[in-house]
């Protein structure tokens, strides 16, 4: 931990001598193994496709799960789904934080892709909060350089491009 003085932080007065402040970063540089199912999902994203997995009762989960949430059986039947879908719920982020998907205001949304039965959490670049609504159609905006992560989807945008 490095401690540095920052005179701008607290002006010195007789009653309150200047106090020290320092920036401090706590970081864990984790590298996770993702397993065979998410690994295949991410590999497909890199190639510009979205894949889910079919459960015993016929539902398609996107993102896929390694195990059937109803029967606990291992899952392996992958299904390609559409790159557009419906917003099932959302929250507006008026002041994005560093390292969030977009630097301008956006929505976090659960998006049920065409052909999927479970929703995917991602960002929607709608421009303004007024352009957001539950039930709206959105489609993927792919990142140009993809490397096999959820960030390969840059965000979703309103279908028809109304922004």
């Amino acid at each position, binding site marked *: 931990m*490095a401690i540095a*003085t920052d005179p701008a932080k607290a002006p010195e007065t007789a009653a309150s001598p200047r106090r*020290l402040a*320092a920036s401090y970063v706590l970081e*864990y540089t984790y590298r*996770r193994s993702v397993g065979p199912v998410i690994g*295949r999902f*991410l*590999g497909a994203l890199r190639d510009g496709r979205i894949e889910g997995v079919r459960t015993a009762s016929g539902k398609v989960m996107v993102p896929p799960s390694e195990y059937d949430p109803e029967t606990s059986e291992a899952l392996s039947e992958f299904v390609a789904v559409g790159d557009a879908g419906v917003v099932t719920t959302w929250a507006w982020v008026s002041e994005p934080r560093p390292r969030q998907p977009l630097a301008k205001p956006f929505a976090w949304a659960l998006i049920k892709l065409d052909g999927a039965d479970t929703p995917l959490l991602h960002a929607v670049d709608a421009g303004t909060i007024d352009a957001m609504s539950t039930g709206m159609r959105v489609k993927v905006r792919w990142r140009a350089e993809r490397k096999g992560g959820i960030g390969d989807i840059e965000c979703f945008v309103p279908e028809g491009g109304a922004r």
Partner: protein
Amino acid sequence: MSEPIRKIEAPVRLEFTVEAGRALTRFLSSIVEERIVGRRCPECTKVYVPARSSCPTCGVPMSEDVTVADTGTLTTFCIVNVPFEGQTMKLPYVYGAIVLDGADLPILHLVQGIPANEVRMGLRVKAEWTPPEERPASLEAIRWFTPSGEPDAPFDAYKEHL
């Protein structure tokens, strides 16, 4: 089918601004002047180094600054033999609890200038200060502690500080 992904980078990163507060600011602004400042509890009379604003045992505010020596006694220590990321010291090295003369609570610091297998409880040590022009406002103002050459402190002299 695409080539599956095996691993992803998933760092966790938290960025803080740490405010030292009045007592720790006293300590940190003194240490760059080669003085080590603690505070004495008005109830139990223990001297805490680094200075803190209240006594954690008695729960009362502490306001009496006490300058302690840059010499002290090594009470307990560990020998670090395992390399880890970000390590700067050559293995093996010693990290120990040092009760400075005039203080009642130990600080943790490096012990150098003696082979690791000769380090012992009760070893008398002295601070080796960094040059003033490159001295940080932190405990790293002291580069490490080295043997002072005095005879070892008897166990009774530091048993209360373990």
